[in-house]
């Protein structure tokens, strides 16, 4: 249980810490330290297990179908990284307390820092690769926020965006790589993946998977050619740089390589990709670092170079090299964190980081200077300090690398050269900053020592540098052994952690690097002149230009596709549907399937002929809107007949009543609209539309024909068999609606209700004056509501209501039901509006249609939820029989209540829609009903 706790605690802390921001920086710093302290205490009991080569596991299911589980794993390697993250994190918290100014948003800072810490812990402790991926992305996001903490600085925002783009892009590649690995292994659990190393390497997908995973690692760990984001991330507050670039963020890629080392390493592809990338990064970083005038810029490129060194060690593929790599991870984290902190102190106390201005600080801050000089010496690889030990191992390994013939001298040469550069830039860091004359026009003068406690983290780290440097076996020996064992899968080679191995070739290389570096530094002006001859590329400008170009391209593409014309979208939509449907339709070949055609009969053909004719005429005469509407209603009625002809009485009744309501609706709309459509499209364009329409029509004909002549089997046997015994009704369609598929119906009447309310809301405060006439010189008739219509309509209401009740009640057994009954009632009411006007009718309707919708939905939900009371699932129905006078034996099903809900919702929605439209006109009381006459 302690492992998920370790990961979760920082996130909880991130929520809690800002609450302490009111209490000042000290309070929030203490509060932010709590999660790490608890986590360290929680990890401590596991130490013995891990030292013995054991593994602590925690597994909880999350999404087993995806292979994603909440599993965490603690072994030597993850412990090493967790300790670095936690301990350096604690020092950073203390350091930030003094680095940040009181007026800054410390709550946000600590919350982000803790989120980042939790994400990093998640990466190193996850045992499931997908889970690790989630934390991996979280580090990208949180580091983005941390780098851009000073949001007012444009450089910070751009640097953060660049970091996010590079590491986020790498994250995508990594995700693909992980998915491929999971595909090969059949599991995302680390134990399975590590055990399946041979299987992965033998797979044909291995080269691609490895490349993708390495892309993820290289982008995160700032390997060439993705290194450029790291120096620009230096716009972050220095504690963030110290944390991200020593122990965490950039080490995530290194961690990934170490973690998957048993599964992926040991092939030629691994060797060439990893070692050459590492070599290039090592050399490039070391070379550029020397020419940076910015203190943090120097450290940034030095970080790039050291990351390259570690990568190169992993790439070499020997076991000793992997041990050296893990060792250098520890050493680099320690000295680089302290150097960043020292740089932050100098920046803090002088107001600048430009090494051309900060000179001779030894006189002003000897204490800080001593600490920084020790750490920088460690970076250079001076004996008796930790950096020396791992660098020595690195030199030794570079000699062991047996490349064929001519290439054999390359690794030692690169190693020595990088060593020379490292000594040179370290010497520059020491000499330029603390000696080399007097400070030049500092913003803060005279500089002095920082607050006492700000130096404590640096002191602790520098002390660690010395301890590891002098007593390596005692100080880090066991931890290194556990981590190396976990990295290599238990098989640790013989190695010796001692200060001196006697006089050998690696030591010679160290001497060469040391004196070569000092010589180089003393001749630095020549190198500067040489370097100045090359035009420096500003990666940020290049990156911004690329971003800008992509953005412009996207804008242009959007503007081309999306020009605001609905007409055009409609065209594109239809065209794409035709394009998508064309290929499968073409492959279909034969359009009359095995089932063949059934015989035709005269009346049906005549009906179909009229329907086709009217549909075409509707299109042909659409400009005369009223005629088009009349023709449309004929089409609708014939569709209803078609349903009736082909054994669907319920559909016929529904279609008929909907048709009536639709036509009334469209007439009502036409009242406000011009009654003629102007002719505004050109002839070719209309010809084009006719061709498109014809293609669509032919396509639909062929699809329908192909479908109808295929033999088929249906799942409806179940409904037919169970309708009567299970649902208590003989009208299977209705039983399906209110019982078998009741939940669908509930959703559908909800949609109906939402549409009606949307209509109401959309028209609520809108007024629309109808045009004075039909555009052809005919005005509106001035008659009041016609007497005859009124007289006929009024007695119709009770009759129609009675019919609707009858239709409703019999719906379960015979054609009818809530939908149809609701529509009939609506039509009866609409008739009153048409005949007698809005005010007259509204006065006599004692309820609001909104409430009818509400009550209807309530009935439906209550009818469904009622089955909970009897411990049945939602919408389970029951039924019984009662004997009813006149009607006879009558069946009462609980589904009837549900159907009543449908009935009410349909009435409410239909009338709300129509009345909302009718009310639009300022003179609605008199006029809105007129077009019905």
């Amino acid at each position, binding site marked *: 249980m302690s492992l998920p706790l370790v990961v979760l605690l920082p996130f909880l802390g991130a929520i809690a810490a800002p609450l302490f921001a009111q209490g000042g920086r000290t309070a929030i710093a203490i509060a932010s330290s709590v999660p790490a302290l608890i986590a360290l205490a929680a990890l401590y009991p596991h130490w013995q297990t891990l030292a013995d080569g054991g593994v602590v596991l925690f597994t909880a299911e999350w999404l087993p179908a995806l292979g994603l589980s909440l599993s965490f794993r603690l072994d030597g390697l993850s412990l090493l990284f967790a300790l670095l993250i936690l301990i350096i994190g604690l020092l950073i918290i203390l350091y930030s307390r003094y680095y940040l100014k009181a007026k800054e948003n410390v709550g946000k800072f600590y919350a982000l820092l803790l989120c980042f810490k939790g994400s990093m812990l998640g990466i190193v402790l996850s045992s499931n690769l997908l889970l690790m991926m989630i934390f991996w992305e979280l580090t990208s996001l949180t580091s983005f926020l941390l780098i851009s903490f000073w949001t007012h600085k444009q450089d910070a925002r751009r640097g953060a965006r660049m970091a996010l783009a590079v590491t986020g892009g790498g994250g995508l590649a990594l995700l693909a790589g992980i998915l491929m690995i999971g595909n090969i292994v059949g599991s995302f659990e680390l134990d399975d993946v590590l055990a399946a190393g041979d299987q992965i390497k033998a797979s044909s997908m291995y080269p691609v998977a490895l490349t993708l995973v390495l892309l993820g690692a290289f982008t995160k760990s700032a390997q060439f050619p993705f290194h450029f984001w790291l120096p620009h991330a230096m716009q972050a507050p220095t504690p963030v740089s110290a944390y991200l670039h020593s122990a965490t963020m950039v080490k995530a890629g290194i961690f990934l390589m170490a973690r998957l080392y048993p599964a992926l390493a040991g092939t030629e592809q691994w060797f060439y990709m990893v070692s050459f990338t590492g070599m290039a990064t090592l050399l490039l970083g070391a070379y550029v670092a020397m020419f940076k005038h910015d203190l943090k810029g120097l450290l940034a490129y030095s970080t790039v170079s050291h990351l390259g060194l570690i990568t190169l060690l992993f790439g070499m593929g020997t076991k000793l090299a992997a041990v050296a790599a893990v060792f250098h991870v520890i050493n680099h984290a320690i000295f680089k964190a302290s150097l960043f902190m020292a740089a932050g102190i100098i920046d803090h106390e002088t107001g600048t980081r430009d090494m051309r201005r900060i000179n001779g600080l030894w006189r002003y801050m000897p204490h800080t200077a001593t600490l920084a000089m020790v750490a920088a010496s460690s970076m250079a690889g001076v004996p008796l300090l930790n950096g020396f030990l791992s660098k020595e191992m690195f030199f030794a390994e570079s000699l062991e690398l047996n490349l064929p013939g001519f290439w054999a001298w390359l690794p030692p040469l690169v190693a020595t050269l990088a060593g020379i550069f490292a000594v040179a830039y370290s010497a520059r860091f020491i000499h330029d900053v603390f000696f080399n004359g007097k400070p030049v026009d500092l913003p803060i003068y005279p500089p002095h020592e920082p607050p006492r406690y700000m130096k404590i983290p640096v002191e602790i780290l520098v002390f660690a540098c010395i301890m590891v440097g002098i007593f390596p076996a005692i100080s880090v020996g066991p931890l290194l052994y556990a981590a190396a064992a976990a990295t290599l899968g238990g098989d640790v080679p013989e190695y010796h952690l001692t200060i001196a191995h006697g006089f050998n070739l690696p030591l010679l290389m160290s001497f060469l690097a040391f004196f070569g570096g000092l010589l180089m530094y003393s001749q630095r002006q020549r190198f500067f002149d040489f370097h100045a001859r090359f035009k420096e590329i500003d990666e940020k400008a290049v990156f911004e230009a690329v971003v800008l170009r992509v953005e412009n391209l996207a804008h242009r593409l959007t503007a081309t596709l999306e020009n605001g014309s609905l007409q055009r979208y409609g065209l594109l939509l239809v065209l794409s549907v035709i394009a998508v449907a064309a290929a499968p339709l073409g492959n279909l070949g034969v359009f009359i399937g095995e089932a063949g055609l059934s015989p035709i009969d005269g009346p049906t053909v005549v009906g179909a002929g009229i329907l086709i004719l009217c549909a075409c005429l509707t299109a042909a005469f659409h400009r005369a809107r009223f005629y088009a509407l009349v023709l449309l209603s004929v089409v609708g009625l014939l569709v209803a007949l078609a349903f009736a002809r082909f054994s669907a009485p319920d559909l016929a009744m529904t279609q008929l009543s909907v048709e009536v309501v639709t036509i009334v609706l469209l007439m009502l709309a036409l009242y406000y609209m011009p009654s003629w459509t102007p002719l505004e*499209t050109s002839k070719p364009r209309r010809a084009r539309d006719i061709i498109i329409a014809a293609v669509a029509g032919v396509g639909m004909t062929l699809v*329908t024909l192909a479908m109808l002549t295929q033999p088929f089997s249906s799942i409806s046997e179940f409904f037919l068999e169970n309708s009567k015994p299970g649902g208590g009704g003989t009208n299977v369609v209705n039983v399906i609606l209110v019982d078998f598929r009741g939940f669908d119906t509930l959703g559908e009447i909800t949609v109906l209700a939402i549409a009606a309310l949307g209509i109401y809301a959309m028209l609520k405060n809108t007024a629309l004056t109808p045009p004075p006439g039909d555009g052809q010189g005919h005005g509106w008739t001035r008659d009041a509501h016609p007497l005859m219509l009124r007289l006929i309509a009024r007695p119709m209401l009770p009759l129609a209501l009675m019919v609707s009740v009858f239709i409703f009640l019999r719906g379960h057994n015979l054609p009818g039901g809530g939908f149809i009954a609701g529509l009939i009632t609506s039509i009866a009411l609409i008739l009153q509006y048409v005949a007698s006007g809005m005010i007259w009718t509204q006065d006599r309707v004692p309820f609001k249609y909104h409430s009818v919708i509400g009550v209807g939905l309530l009935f439906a939900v209550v009818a469904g939820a009622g089955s909970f009371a009897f411990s049945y699932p939602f919408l389970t129905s029951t039924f019984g029989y009662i004997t009813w006078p006149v009607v006879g034996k009558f069946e009462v099903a609980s589904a009837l209540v549900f159907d009543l809900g449908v009935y009410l919702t349909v009435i409410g929605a239909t009338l709300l829609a129509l009345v909302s439209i009718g009310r639009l006109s300022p003179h609605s009381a008199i006029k809105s009903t007129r077009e019905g006459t």
Partner: protein
Amino acid sequence: MELVFALVIGALTASGVYLLLRARTFPVIVGLTLISYGVNLFLFSSGRLATGAQPIIGTTDTYTDPLPQALVLTAIVIGFAMTAFVVVLSLRSLADHEDDHVDGHQDAKAPQPEQNEEGTGK
């Protein structure tokens, strides 16, 4: 019979699509209505065409597939709600823009109407 039915759906689709591509809201609504007729008939016919086989237990010997019918029944009602919504959308657009062009405004580059074709629309 299947061929006749398929032609009906084809005709509904063709006229619907043609009207859908018009520039004014009212023809577009009419076009949508025609298309929804076609779609409803198409979905309904996925249960195949049978005469005298209404799915009401005890009235016939064989029953046609009731499931597409149930689906189409709600589709008809929802289709009405959709039509009503689009109608209101067009009314609102008319109220806001004082124009019933589907783009909310007439394109300045639209070709001049041809006076001699008044009345047919095709």
